[in-house]
């Protein structure tokens, strides 16, 4: 079955309203179990990919190739190819790291936290979001690794016995970061893969060619859908969700400790952990929307990822956006209330100093733009949603840039102030990391089940066509 262009999809009923006493349908268009399987499996089963997929992949892969070249240039020359220098020793590199690691958080929130809260609408988008998490964490991991200067010695961060008798310092927030991010990457990967095993088995059982049967068969691990297996599978899934929930809250808290435990005005604030976590979820949901809206149209998944899903995500975006706006306000209030001249100066400098433009981009994108989502028209309009999501993507990158660069460039002593101007390598690596992310993402949408079929079938009622998907 070929990919259905958007124009061919049937007009679907509106499921964004609330009818008291009745749960809104999660799957539209009267899909039954087989229909759902066909719709989702048709994407990896097309013999040839559509030209648009090839075009996007080529663009992304070119970005990835450029990224690899720039990493080679950086490693062979030194990190002086970046614009970083004293006093701004952290700039695009750490901004990109925090930006990407934050993107990942929405994936875990959707897969773990919404699962624990029994938000069944998550089943349509969780696979997507989890994949996004893993690819984002991969992008994130590269920046601190190359930023250490001699990346071939990055393994020194691991506590392993060595002839130098050297151990890492376990009380350093930078080492906490190493543990938090690597644990997060591994647990997210396990969560994603375990959830995908039954769907890989579906692809294996539908496979027509030997190669597909072997490859999907290997990764499906011999899954037969046995009741005994499902019982342990569900238990494992619940346990992983329970473990991932505190984990995701801890990861961005630990990332924020990199800043908050320092003495620098603008970084040394106790609000950072919750503020960073809310910001991460906010930025991550914006990225999920950015990816899901084109993908559902392109692959004809409107019956599975319905307008109600988009609207729900927009509500999360609005709520977390308001938390982020509140955090910006509290930050300013505490700076004033602290009575510390340095704190007051740090924030006055952010809002009116040489980098004020970045601060106001951040406020405009993260606080003002999401206010559109109070209106139902905007929440259910795909173009407005995409516009807001793109604003938030930009705004969240600028948030980290403002925090890092404005604080470092002007600290206590004016004689040690300095500026920052990025080089072409800085911009190239930022663009290149998107190349890596989208290369992985395009491969994912082409070869793996992008919607969690078994989970959706689980929330569909026992009845078949006609009334399918009436569960909430």
């Amino acid at each position: 079955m070929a990919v259905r262009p958007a124009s061919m999809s049937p007009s679907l009923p509106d499921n964004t309203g609330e009818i008291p006493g009745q749960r809104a349908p999660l799957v539209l268009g009267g899909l039954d179990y087989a229909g759902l399987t066909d719709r989702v499996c048709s994407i990896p089963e097309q013999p040839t990919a559509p030209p648009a997929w090839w075009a996007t992949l080529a663009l992304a892969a070119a970005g990835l190739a450029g990224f690899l070249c720039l990493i080679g240039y950086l490693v062979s020359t030194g990190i002086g190819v970046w614009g970083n220098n004293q006093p701004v020793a952290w700039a695009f590199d750490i901004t990109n790291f925090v930006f990407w690691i934050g993107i990942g958080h929405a994936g875990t929130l959707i897969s773990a936290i919404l699962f624990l809260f029994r938000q069944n609408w998550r089943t349509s988008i969780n696979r997507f979001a989890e994949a996004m998490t893993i690819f984002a964490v991969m992008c994130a991991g590269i920046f601190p690794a190359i930023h250490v200067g001699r990346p071939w010695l990055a393994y020194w961060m691991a506590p392993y016995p060595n002839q130098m008798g050297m151990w890492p310092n376990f009380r350093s927030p930078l080492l906490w970061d190493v543990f938090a991010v690597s644990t997060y990457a591994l647990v997210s990967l396990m969560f994603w893969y375990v959830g995908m095993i039954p769907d890989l088995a579906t692809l294996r059982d539908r496979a027509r060619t030997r190669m597909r049967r072997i490859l999907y068969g290997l990764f499906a691990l011999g899954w037969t859908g046995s009741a005994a297996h499902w019982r342990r599978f569900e238990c494992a899934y619940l346990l992983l969700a329970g473990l991932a929930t505190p984990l995701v809250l801890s990861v961005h808290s630990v990332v924020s400790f990199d800043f908050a435990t320092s003495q620098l005005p603008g970084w040394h604030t106790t609000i950072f952990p919750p503020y960073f976590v809310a910001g991460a979820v906010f930025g991550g949901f914006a990225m999920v929307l950015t990816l899901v809206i084109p993908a559902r149209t392109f692959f004809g998944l409107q019956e599975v990822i319905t307008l109600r899903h988009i609207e729900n995500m927009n509500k999360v975006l609005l709520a977390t956006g308001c938390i982020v706006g509140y955090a910006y306000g509290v930050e300013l209030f505490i700076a004033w209330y602290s009575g510390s001249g340095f704190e007051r100066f740090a924030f006055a400098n952010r809002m009116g100093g040489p980098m004020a433009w970045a601060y106001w981009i951040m406020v405009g994108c993260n606080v003002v733009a999401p206010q559109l989502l109070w209106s139902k028209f905007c929440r259910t309009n795909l173009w407005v949603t995409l516009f807001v999501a793109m604003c938030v993507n930009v705004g969240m990158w600028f948030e980290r840039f403002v925090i890092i660069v404005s604080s470092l460039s002007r600290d206590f002593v004016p004689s040690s102030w300095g500026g920052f101007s990025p080089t072409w390598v800085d911009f190239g690596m930022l663009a290149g990391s998107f190349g890596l992310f989208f290369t992985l993402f395009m491969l994912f949408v082409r070869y793996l089940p992008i919607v969690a079929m078994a989970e959706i079938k689980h929330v569909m009622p026992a009845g078949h066509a006609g009334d399918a998907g009436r569960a909430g």
Partner: protein
Amino acid sequence: MSVEVSTSRPPAEPVLYGLLAEFDDPAALARAAAAVRQKGYTRWDAHSPFPVHGLDEAMGARRTRLPLIALIAGLCGLIGGLKLAWYTNASDLAFMPSFLRGYPFMISGKPVFSLPANIPVVFETTVLLAALGTVLGMLGLNRLPRLHHPLFASERFARATTDRFFIVIEARDPRFDRRAAAEFLRSLGAAAVEEVAEGPP
């Protein structure tokens, strides 16, 4: 769908693995599972494309030991993480060889070991080992991965991961009788009953 028993067998008479019965929907599967259990079979299983509500109760399944495995793995991570941080940064055991010997890290005059400063790493190792224990425990208890299963030989069974529901009574069940079991499964409303051979060893 017509009720049928396929009996075409190759001449070598392969060893029987069991009887595969196909059902149309989850409710029929749960009803049939309750009846199979009632009948006293012990070596049997149900297969479905997704976890079916009420099937565990119908099958009289016991609770899985997986949470216990996760707890033990998590405690190992907790104790291991604490030990690691203490050993490398706060201990000084003279009898250890130099490449394995920890030493007290004096940083800003702070105590060499204090719990709050070590909580983040210990928390991460706890979560990591608990998650690893959960995944490996789930696969281990399920005897996965396995490369082959006799049921994969059945054309019909390919839909067990899409939209059909199955019960398998294995031939090694002490109460198994080829004819009686097939008759019984058909009486439960199976859409089809099929004999499945044990695969090549």
